[in-house]
């Protein structure tokens, strides 16, 4: 599976026997002066050539220890990339001539923000991208965009690293040799001629989910010219179940958009509303808005029924761990209980839940919503939306629109069948990596071999491109003109932040080349499309405004008034019978379906619930683990349908008892230096018919072990009052319950007078009731503060560098635990234990209350980290930051120091942002206003859980939150007096379910 390791080759070169006689002959026959460095060089052996070309002498990285050598090389990819590889690329130009006429709004040192969209699996999320001197460095949410409202998810935050990834595909290749776009354009012209003459028979286009109106139109136009051609959409994390389920319920394919800001009761049947859903960022915001315990209307209540714990489950008031296969019965029983469906109700294992939820829903007709997850079979969706219709939620809390994805003309199984039977002569793959992504049962690789001409557009030289005749390097989303729709259909015109670093092309341009317009730029194509859409009335002003705002106003898809189909329940069939262990497939929270597998930030970001990094795992319930006698990190053989895959076990509290979950996106064998070799490939036992869960899986121990890099091994709070939580009833009786814990020292205890903060006094408050643990803050901080990636072996040693981490605790039983998240930044303690112990005064307190690190002064005794009770200090044990790779230079935030080896670092409260605001304010001779300083974690937070500001300003948001009755400090009994405090969590439990 793995390529022969190039690095190992030169080792033979040194030991290869030399033919000295031949060397003499060669030297004597040479003309002119000959310079040679070694005998091997004169011999000119291929191994020696490889040795010379290979910049890295074998073994140079073997210094640290044997386990990390390979890993180190891999993680060199994104964060420590090899400088040599970037030599042939167009890197940030080194201009030495100053601008004679500076571009408008171009002030050196001052970032500019552009609105655009970054689509994932077809779904766009409106963003603003910070650009420093033409380099995009940081993604922020677009506050005006309905899907973002200023926040983003982790995938968008990591997009900038994807842009500068040194492993990106950098050239057009033809049969593995370097070619050019011009050559492809020429070849496309020829291909077009022949396709036109054959009316396109045998020509197939395979795309990922396409929501882009212009691309869909371009493909349709091409297909119109070529009646024999067909278009297939294959999205590994598809929402086909959703649209199909709604077709069952309403008679035509639709998709739901939830209005969680109007829902008092939310029931999620395996819907990861705040994680995997395309509207996750908006949903989390709306959910949190309704979750204010102090609000007069009370807070909402969330029930989650799911097989494997998600962040949505973690946010739930009641979470039921239920096998995926049982969810349909659960939904039907609920529908029967509510009178939406005719009985008899199927037998369910948790009738009490059905009764309680049904009663709660009935009490909130029109102000509740039931949601089903995209991983559930269509029948669940049909039942769920029948319930919504029955409860009067349709049109209120759940609205239905046309599906976002363009309609393709062929399904993947059909396409593969045609390929196998040699009916496909030319396959154009626009994006995606089907060779890796397609479930194994379709045997895509064999089928692909039978296609005579294979063309692949892709961001990486990956598994698929390796077997294609043409590979065209795809432009990154931040380099492209395009358009895409957000979860509710709102169109965003994508505008590039930077010219393609490696001359990449977009799908639109490739289709245009085949449509006879090889010279058309993506900009022109998008502009023309929208010009045509507006019947030629799109003025430059309007166009510019749309670009500036980041979306086309009023482009959200219209809500459809839809009655339930008459005999909708008849078409559902009966729920599948379950037997044995159930196996769930899920996209990974970070690397998704594998497309982000080469992104070091995402690889190293701890998964929200498991806190695993750098690997996927066979997640089993504690019960199954006990039954089979398996421990964490045991490598097991996972069998299903005659296929097997090996992976390490991770026991997950809250996993449904008979349920196994594996995540997609790992086991890449040609995905770049970071991706290759990490984890196992779950696609190998996935089936296309039932892509999300199957029953009858088997587990067998292999006896092998595989270390998993988990950043938090300990699950329990050990009875310490870290996350403080109360039921809504208790909160109403005793709103300041969180402050009555432990004995804090009195302020007057100190002999010294209190320091008076004359100017600003910065502080932060984090609302644990709003935090879903989605990780966006961690990665936003990483992007903002140039935080290094350290690699799996270093994470295994507990040396991860994140400045803000999210602590996850389980409470209650192993099988049905409550899940709590607690983001930890530096607390900027008033009596900071770290400051007094630093021997060189490298960490000091500013007169605005910041606990600041002076990197230049730090000698690295690590005493401060030892003495920090919150353990938020991070040490550069090695030179973690990549100082060599040129492509990564562009990524860095110029306002933040890139740290060197041997120094301590930690959260600064984004002091660079404070200073930027200060300069602005001082120019205008005023104080910094509340809301002007927004830390990176605060900005990205989908639920606005983080507030930051001046505590001296009594009307600032943070000062008000600090006065909230739920406000408490962590470990205040140590007299550290933290500046970051928490608002306690309040749980709105249903008394019916609490009783037992």
């Amino acid at each position, binding site marked *: 599976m793995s390529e022969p390791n190039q690095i190992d080759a030169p080792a033979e070169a040194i030991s290869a026997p030399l033919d000295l006689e031949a060397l003499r002959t060669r030297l004597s026959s040479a003309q002119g002066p000959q310079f040679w460095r070694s005998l091997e060089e004169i011999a000119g052996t291929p191994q020696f050539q490889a040795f010379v070309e290979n910049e890295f002498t074998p073994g140079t990285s073997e*210094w*640290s*220890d044997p386990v990390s050598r390979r890993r180190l090389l891999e993680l060199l990819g994104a964060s420590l990339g090899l400088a040599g590889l970037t030599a042939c690329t167009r890197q940030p130009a080194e201009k030495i001539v100053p601008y004679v006429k500076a571009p408008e709004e171009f002030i050196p040192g001052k970032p500019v923000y552009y609105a655009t969209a970054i689509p994932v699996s077809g779904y766009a999320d409106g963003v603003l991208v910070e650009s420093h001197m033409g380099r995009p460095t940081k993604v922020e949410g677009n506050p005006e965009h309905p899907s973002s409202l200023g926040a983003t998810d982790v995938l968008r935050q990591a997009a900038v690293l994807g842009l500068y990834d040194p492993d990106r595909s950098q050239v057009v290749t033809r049969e593995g040799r370097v070619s050019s776009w011009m050559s492809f354009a020429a070849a496309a012209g020829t291909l077009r001629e022949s396709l036109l003459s054959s009316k396109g028979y045998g020509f197939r286009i395979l795309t990922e989910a396409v929501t882009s109106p212009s691309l869909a139109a371009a493909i349709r136009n091409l297909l119109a010219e070529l009646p024999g051609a067909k278009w297939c959409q294959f999205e590994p994390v598809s929402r086909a179940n959703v649209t199909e389920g709604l077709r069952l319920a309403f008679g035509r394919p639709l998709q739901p958009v939830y209005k969680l800001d109007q829902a008092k009761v939310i029931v999620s049947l395996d819907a990861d509303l705040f994680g995997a859903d395309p509207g996750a960022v908006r949903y989390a915001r709306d959910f949190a808005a309704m979750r204010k315990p102090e609000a007069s209307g009370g807070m909402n209540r969330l029930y989650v029924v799911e097989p494997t714990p998600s962040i949505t489950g973690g946010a739930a008031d009641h979470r039921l761990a239920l096998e995926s296969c049982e969810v349909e019965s659960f939904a039907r029983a609920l529908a029967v209980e509510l009178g939406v469906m005719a009985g008899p109700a199927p037998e369910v294992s948790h009738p009490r839940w059905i009764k309680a939820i049904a009663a709660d829903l009935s009490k909130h007709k029109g102000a509740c919503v039931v949601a089903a997850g995209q991983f559930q079979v269509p029948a669940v969706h049909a039942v769920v939306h029948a319930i919504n219709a029955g409860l009067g939620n349709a049109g209120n809390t759940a609205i239905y629109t046309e599906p976002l994805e363009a309609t393709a003309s062929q399904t993947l199984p059909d396409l593969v069948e045609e390929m196998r039977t040699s009916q496909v002569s030319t396959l154009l793959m626009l994006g995606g990596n089907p060779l890796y992504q397609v479930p194994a049962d379709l045997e895509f690789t064999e089928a692909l071999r039978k296609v005579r001409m294979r063309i692949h557009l892709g961001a990486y030289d990956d598994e698929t491109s390796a077997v294609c005749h043409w590979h065209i390097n795809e432009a990154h989303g931040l380099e492209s003109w395009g358009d895409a729709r957000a979860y509710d259909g709102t169109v965003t015109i994508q505008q590039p932040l930077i010219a393609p670093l490696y001359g990449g092309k977009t799908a639109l341009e490739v289709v245009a080349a085949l449509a006879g317009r090889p010279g058309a730029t993506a900009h022109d194509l998008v502009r023309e499309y929208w010009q045509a859409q507006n019947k030629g009335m799109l003025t430059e002003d309007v166009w510019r405004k749309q670009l500036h705002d980041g979306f086309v106003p009023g482009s959200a898809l219209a809500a459809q008034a839809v009655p339930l189909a008459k005999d909708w329940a008849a078409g559902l069939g009966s729920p599948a019978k379950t037997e044995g262990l159930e196996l769930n497939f899920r996209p990974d929270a970070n690397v998704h379906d594998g497309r982000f597998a080469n992104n070091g930030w995402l690889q190293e970001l701890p998964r929200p619930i498991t806190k695993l990094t750098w690997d996927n795992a066979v997640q089993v319930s504690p019960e199954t683990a006990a039954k089979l006698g398996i421990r964490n990190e045991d490598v097991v053989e996972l069998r299903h349908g005659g296929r097997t895959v090996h992976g390490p076990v991770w026991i997950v509290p809250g996993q449904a008892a008979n349920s196994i979950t594996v995540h997609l996106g790992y086991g890449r064998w040609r995905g770049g230096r970071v991706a290759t070799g990490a984890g196992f490939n779950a696609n190998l036992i996935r089936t296309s018919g039932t892509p999300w869960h199957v029953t009858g899986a088997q587990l067998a121990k292999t006896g092998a072990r595989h270390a998993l890099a988990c950043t*938090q*091994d*300990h*699950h*329990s*709070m*050990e*009875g*310490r009052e*870290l996350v403080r939580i109360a039921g809504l009833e208790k909160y109403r009786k005793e709103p300041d319950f969180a402050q009555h814990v432990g004995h804090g020292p009195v302020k007057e205890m100190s002999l010294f007078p209190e320091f008076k903060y004359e100017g600003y006094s910065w502080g932060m408050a984090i609302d644990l009731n709003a935090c879903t643990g989605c990780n966006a803050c961690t990665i936003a901080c990483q992007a903002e503060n140039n935080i290094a990636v350290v690699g799996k072996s*270093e994470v295994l*040693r*507990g*040396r*991860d560098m994140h400045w803000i*981490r999210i*602590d*996850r*605790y389980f409470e209650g039983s192993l099988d049905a635990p409550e899940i709590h998240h*607690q983001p*930890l930044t530096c607390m900027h303690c008033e009596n900071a*234990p770290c400051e*007094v*112990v*630093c*021997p*060189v*005064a490298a960490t000091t307190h500013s007169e605005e209350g910041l606990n600041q690190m002076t990197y230049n*002064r*730090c*000698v*690295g*005794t*690590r*005493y401060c*980290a*030892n*003495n920090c*009770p*919150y*353990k938020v*200090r*991070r*040490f*550069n*044990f*090695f*030179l973690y930051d990549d100082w060599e790779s040129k492509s990564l230079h562009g990524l860095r935030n110029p306002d933040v120091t890139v740290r060197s*080896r*041997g*120094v*301590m670092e930690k959260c600064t409260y984004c002091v660079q942002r404070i200073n930027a605001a200060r300069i602005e304010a001082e120019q205008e001779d005023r104080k910094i206003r509340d809301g002007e300083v927004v830390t990176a974690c605060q900005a990205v937070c989908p639920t606005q859980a983080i507030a930051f500001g001046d505590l001296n300003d009594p009307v600032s948001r943070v000062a008000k939150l600090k006065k909230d009755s739920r406000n408490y400090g*962590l*470990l205040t009994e*140590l007299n*550290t007096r933290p500046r970051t405090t928490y608002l306690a969590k309040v749980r709105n439990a249903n008394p019916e379910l609490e009783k037992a």
Partner: protein
Amino acid sequence: MEHDEQQPSKAVDTEYEVIEPGHSYRSVTDHISAIVLTRKTPKTWLIGFGVSFMVLSLLLMSLGGLLVKGIGLWGVNQPVGWGFDIINFVWWIGIGHAGTLISAILLLLRQDWRTSINRFAEAMTLFAVACAGIYPVFHTGRPWLAYWLFPYPNTMGTWPQVLSPLVWDVFAVSTYATVSALFWYVGMIPDLATLRDRARAKGAKIFYGMLAMGWRGSARHWARYETASLLLAGLATPLVISVHTVVSFDFAVGIIPGWHATIFPPYFVAGAIFAGFAMVLTLSIPLRVFYKLEDFITNRHLDNMAKVMLATGLIVGYGYMMETFMAWYSGNPYESFLMKNRFSGPYMWFYWALITCNVLAPQILWWRRFRRNVTMLFVVSIIVSIGMWLERFIIIPVSLHRDFLPSSWGMYWPTSWDWMTFIGTLGLFASLMFIFLRLLPMISIFEMRTIVPPAEGRSKE
């Protein structure tokens, strides 16, 4: 000199001698100076030094690797920021204490039995401090900037941060090293003069002549010498207490459960003396056999040192007891968790091994029979050295690995680089010791002469 002091018949006297009978001034001088001057370098010395030097090379290699790659080669991590580096620093510093105690406090207390062991105990102190000194420098993330811990006028316009115990350490340890070196050297001057006078080879004459600094043994010299050594003893005495007290502040000032304890200073000092005497025993028992010094380092010495070990061991045991008691009595959940974690956490074996080594094993020293059994003493001394090392392991990584927030709990395991560095310092210590034994009088000649009974001394003269 030929008599075998292992014979029980010789040991019937209840009061041992600090020097076996039958020695004269000359025999003392002959015997000790011969080791340096006239005897052929023994093969065993060559082998011993060769091995030690190779082990020392390991230290050079591991420190070289550290400079090239970074502190990450070691097993330290988050949350355990200090591991072998500080364990071994404290261990070595502790070992040094016995030397100072013997040479300073016992001198002031006129304990003349100290005479025969003080020279090499002082050497041991010095070498142990040299080994210890490596760690604070190299354990920093940027060792080339470690000198910033010293107060010196600089263009950065900043001084060390004097609230930090690490700065106190700098003063404590550097003072300690300076005073110990001075004391050792000044105490050696009369003997160096003896060696100068007895040396036959020219090189040796020059070498010892330079070191002897013109000592002629005049009454004035002796008077000055007596004053100087008393003054130095006076200076060194508080150091016995202060150095390890300051070292214990590194922890006691910290906020971490297991560190933040007022008992630390006395408990550390007792532990240091405990460890130091163990090391003196570990060294002197084989030395007196190899160099046939049983007449000078007699069973009385061993017995006395064993008693000191027993006493300090009891103090250390009391320290462990009080830590446990306070964890319960304070009602502090973090403290009581810490003790629970020591007793039954992932490092419980280290803790119980520590109790066995430091509390249980020394108890056999209550019996004179065992105190007189040289092999047994040797074994106990090694066990105590291990126990004291384990104590530092329990205090440093075991306290750090599980502190306040369970989310950041971790584990600490040393890497091969940690071991290489530690073993390398053992090599440095042994190499220095071998060089000392070969080049300098390991027992104070002139002081030994003072304890030779006057009648006997003259009769043989």
